[in-house]
């Protein structure tokens, strides 16, 4: 029976993230539009877009290779697996031991690696510019993320996300400088990784500034649908990650009662809504920065992460 519940929780989580991801993107769009006093598209618009893209034919460049056609599936799979391993409404995920936080970061790295390759496959300068900038951003964002993982792992004594989440609700946490630094750094990394303002603008196709959109310019039809879905999924993943670590309240513990799962779901919805509001307000209030100021931004994230880890290393002996 316990195993069945575990399976249900894990399966529910996998379905939940995939169903919720386009909704989150839709809500963000709607809120940003409302903040600008526009009506904005419906919150369900993203689902409609995905359906539309799925029904369309794939229009493929003549010289696209097999890799170009395989990449959307790889990106989607890697992002989905990563998203399925981050606790959303319940911590006792059946497969959480298959990959710790380092492996989840690396899974996202796999997705990015293939996306950057896909950008170069057709051989256009747009694709090249996107890939080149993407790996530049990743070369700073990924170490920053690893440093954040170090901070969390040193605090919780584990790199397993469920253990970290359980540790964060326990009274042993206290108020820690390192956690604050890690939170700021993680938010910065999340903005960069999801191509949000101020690093990249998801709404624009202006060639001098775009990164993510430039890489996927040659994609169409169901391939594009998968990539878009993976992008939404990644945004939701970062929301869930921040919620699971820094807002751990309400999440259902392993083998809980049905009510606990209900509370967990409600709490998760509230956290995501809160995050979406904050992100929408932030994006509306901020301007996109020049692409060569991004390294400074991410360098700051890396240094914050390193500082957090360093503090923990040093304070361990005191």
């Amino acid at each position, binding site marked *: 029976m316990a195993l069945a519940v575990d399976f249900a929780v894990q399966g529910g989580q996998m379905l939940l993230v995939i169903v919720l991801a386009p909704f989150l993107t839709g809500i963000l769009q709607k809120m940003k539009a409302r903040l600008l006093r526009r009506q904005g598209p419906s919150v369900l618009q993203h689902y409609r877009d995905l359906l539309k893209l*799925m029904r369309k034919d794939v*229009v493929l460049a003549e010289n696209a*290779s097999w*890799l170009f056609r395989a990449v959307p599936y790889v990106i989607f799979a890697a992002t989905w697996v990563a998203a399925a391993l981050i606790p959303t409404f319940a911590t006792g995920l059946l497969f959480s031991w298959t990959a710790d936080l380092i492996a989840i970061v690396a899974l996202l*790295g796999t997705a990015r690696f293939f996306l950057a390759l896909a950008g170069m496959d057709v051989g256009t300068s*747009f694709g090249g510019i996107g890939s080149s900038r993407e790996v530049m951003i990743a070369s700073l964002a990924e170490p920053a993320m690893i440093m954040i993982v170090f901070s969390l792992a040193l605090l919780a004594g584990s790199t397993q996300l469920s253990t970290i989440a359980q540790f964060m609700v326990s009274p042993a946490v206290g108020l820690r400088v390192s956690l604050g630094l890690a939170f700021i750094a993680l938010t910065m990394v999340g903005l960069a990784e999801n191509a949000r303002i101020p690093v990249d603008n998801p709404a624009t196709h202006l060639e001098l500034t775009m990164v993510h959109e430039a890489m996927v310019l040659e994609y169409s039809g169901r391939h594009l649908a998968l990539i878009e879905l993976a992008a939404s999924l990644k945004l939701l993943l970062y929301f869930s990650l921040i919620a699971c670590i820094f807002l751990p309240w309400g999440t259902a513990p392993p083998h809980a009662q049905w009510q606990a799962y209900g509370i967990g779901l409600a709490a998760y919805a509230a956290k995501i809504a809160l995050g979406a509001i904050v992100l929408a307000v932030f994006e509306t209030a901020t301007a996109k920065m020049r*692409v060569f100021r991004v390294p400074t931004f991410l360098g700051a994230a890396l240094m914050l992460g390193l500082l957090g880890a360093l503090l923990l*290393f*040093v304070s361990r002996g005191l």
Partner: protein
Amino acid sequence: MPGGVHILILQCCVLSLLTTAVAAIPFGRRPVGTALIYGASAVISAIGCATATIALFANQSEALQLPLGLPWIGANFRLDALSSLFLVIVNLGATGASVYAMGHGRDEHAPQRVLPFFAAFLAGMNLVVLSDDAFTFLLSWEFMSLTSWALVMAHHRQSDTAHAGYVYLLMASFGTFALLLAYGVLAGAAGNYGFEAMRMQHPAAITSAVVLVLVLIGAGSKAGLVPLHVWLPLAHPAAPSHVSALMSGVMTKVAIYAFIRIVFDLLGPPLWWWGIVVLALGGITSLMGVLYALFENDIKRVLAYSTIENIGFIFVGLGLALAFRADHFESAAVLALTAALFHAFNHSIFKSLLFFGSGAVLSATGERNMDKLGGLIHRMPLTAFACLAGCIAIAALPPSNGFASEWLTFQAVLLSPELPQWGLKLLVPAVGALLALSVALAAACFVRVFGITFLGRARTPAAADAHETDGYSLFVMLSLATTCLIAGIVPGFFIDAIAPVVQGIFAHHMPHQSAVAWLSIVPITKDRSSYNGLLIFLFLAVSAGLSACVLRLLSSNRVRRVPIWDGGFPDPTPLMQYSAESFAQPIRRIFGTLLFRAREHIDMPSPGDMRPARLDVKLVDVIWDTIYAPLARAVSLITKRLNILQFLTIRRYLSLVFSALVVLLLVVAIWR
């Protein structure tokens, strides 16, 4: 057990390799020679590899003494777990290279320059790992260096080869000299050149410090530790590709073996600051190596620089192991050493694979410059597939083997706050950040390598007319790619295979991994960290398959092929694609301006002027300019000054000799 059967077989392998080398001299010029010699090397290396694997699992110490070498010690050989593991690495790489060369080597225009030295080089590497006294070790080491030097010089008419060979010869001699001194200090006044005798005596702190520095110079220069790496990116690419693979994938591991053998085995218990030295060197090497690789356009040199990065990674693992060992954190020390050894094995696999791939590209197009390639995935699909697997592994992405060893190293880093020394407490997180940075940059580097070389449109006719490489090469590349995947999804078996080695050095080993449920790896405890490559691989495969099935059911399945869209403005020529230079430009701006003093100069013609605009990028190799160039200048200055001694009259020579004698006698008189 003296004179065991495994060591006898391995010695027979070495002997047959040497015989093959001699036989290659008359056969070298004949057409059958290539197939014959490489075939023989492949068979012998495969036997050696199998024997070493069996010996690794049997885990006994076997010794053999041959009446060669110095009369009062003879030539001592020993096979223990450590040497078995490295013999597996050596002979696995050698088998791959030999089979690959059966196809690739046919294009060689002067096989007589390669064949004898190839077999001798294999024998040399085996001998280094087997030897059990300082004399045999140094002799084999020098034999290995010289045969590999001869292989570097095989294409001696190419412009850079002479320079590469010269620098390599200098650095190799210097390295051997440092090792010679290290053994001299270890042997002490009594002159005990056998390893067994060295193990027995416990040198004083200052003595062991001297030995550590000398070994870091000697083995480090062969492995490519910054700043002793300068020869490596020159020499490794200059050799024929299968030899490059051996030098980068395997010979650097022999250097790692030498470091482990001397520092972990012969030198006695470590002091805590050894860890600091090795960690700092490893971290710097790792970052510098990958940055050099990112700013390089020659595909084989990129691979050579990336070897430097991986060597740095391995040395970080070894440094952590030393630090933990010095502070008696046994389980952490065991984890760090296991991670380093596993990464050494993994690197030998994927680096060989990538060098084989670059060799296939080289013989198909005649180009090593990435900016002259492109679109090879259409022309060489299988090579591209194998190289993609290699790139994934070297970029440390799950579920490859590169990720598994990287993950273990990070787990070891995370155990280090318990170390009591402040120096280590401050250094380890910084080194962890350097590692994370170099891993991310390595991913960028190999997106660049694969993307520019294999993807996009062909930039030159040579790349457009390329053809798929031969069956032998493909077989080897695909087998190595499979090995990368297998070692990535079931790393537990490989960690268990390494366990006897770690047991032999630290008298502890990691918890048994293959018994863990679902073949996870659990380095310390289950709620601390675990990783399951097999399930990750299955999840990825199932999710990708599931999404493909769902889309097949729900969506339009038509695919229309049309000209490139590119936002409505397709580039007229393939030369407008991103090049290797431009791809690295953002990263060059971030890291290059400080570390390489990168300067960009734009030469924009005034309106009406018809000449093309130019962008010049200048990179300064800071290490070469600050260490090696002044050294070379000083040497040439001194030699110039001393040159007058060459043109003296006989009277002056005689008076010089006389005064020298008088001075020496005076010194002796005063000394007494």
